[in-house]
């Protein structure tokens, strides 16, 4: 009987030992699996970091930023986070240089562009303004050079980006130097731009 009990005790002890060993093995195996997973995650992380480090962000910006507007897709447009104060987004504008069809410009430039467009089609109103402010003779002089000198100069400016009234005045001055002389051109350009500013419906 005692012998039988001894055998049972030895067998159970062996069983417990066996179970402990197998559990330990499984535990080690689980830990190894975890370690392996952890290692691969770390590898991925390292690889990603390396990839990110090697990326040239500027190349993306160069390809997709037009006039301060970042374009990630034809349908999604992200405007620069810090636009100039008083900036306006206007569009759509068709042009090869602007795949997004959106143009950003300052309020001053927008007003100048609108004023220019109005001026090209309303030169008579400008001449009348000159007559009203400087007299009939000045109006006749400006009227004589309006179609041959001023209008072509204004039309050339239609493609200029970031247009200002200063640029319009300079262009008119350059155009009028030949027919009116420097002093006359300076005064005429000043008055014509004043006329555009006050008369154009912006």
């Amino acid at each position: 009987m005692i012998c039988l009990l001894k055998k049972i005790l030895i067998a159970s002890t062996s069983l417990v030992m066996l179970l402990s060993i197998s559990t330990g093995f499984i535990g080690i195996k689980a830990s190894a699996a975890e370690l392996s997973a952890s290692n691969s995650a770390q590898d991925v992380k390292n690889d990603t970091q390396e990839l990110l480090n090697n990326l040239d962000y500027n190349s993306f910006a160069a390809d997709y930023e037009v006039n301060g507007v970042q374009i990630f897709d034809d349908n999604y447009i992200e405007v620069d986070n810090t636009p100039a104060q008083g900036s306006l987004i206007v569009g759509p504008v068709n042009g090869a240089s602007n795949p997004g069809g959106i143009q950003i410009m300052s309020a001053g430039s927008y007003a100048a562009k609108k004023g220019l467009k109005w001026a090209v089609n309303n030169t008579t109103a400008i001449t009348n303004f000159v007559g009203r402010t400087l007299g009939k003779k000045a109006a006749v002089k400006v009227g004589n050079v309006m179609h041959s000198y001023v209008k072509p100069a204004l039309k050339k400016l239609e493609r200029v980006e970031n247009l200002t009234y200063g640029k319009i005045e300079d262009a008119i001055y350059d155009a009028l130097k030949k027919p009116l002389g420097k002093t006359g051109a300076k005064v005429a350009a000043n008055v014509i731009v004043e006329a555009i500013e006050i008369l154009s419906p912006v």
Partner: protein
Amino acid sequence: MEKFEELEDRIKKIEEEIEQIDRLDNDTFELTQKLEKVTSLLVEVVENNKSIDKNDIDFIVLKFDIDPKQYHEIPMLVSKKEKEYRKNGTFPTLKQFHQEVLETLSISELENNELLPIEVTKNLLEKYKKTDEYDYFAVCEKILST
């Protein structure tokens, strides 16, 4: 080398001539402006039987020999006030505007320390306020009412 020096001399001469042309251009402009003003005043007196007030702005600029390049500054000043009025609804008082006219013409005192009378500015505003089909300067009426 000799030709090079000759070329340099020619360039120098051309530059001097350009300066002279600019001076003549300026003088011609000034004389033309004065002549046009005198002619228009004369026509007003003779043809239209209009008496020219001694406080008329055109007479003032001729009498005190104001730089003809500044003639257009006065209508531009009125125009700027009109722009401000249209944009913000603000306009200066007659006294403030008179001061700006004096500054624009670069005159603070006339002969014998006599100040340019405010009537000059009043006449100016009357001239530019709505009198015909144009209605550019509604601000003139507003300034005159202050």
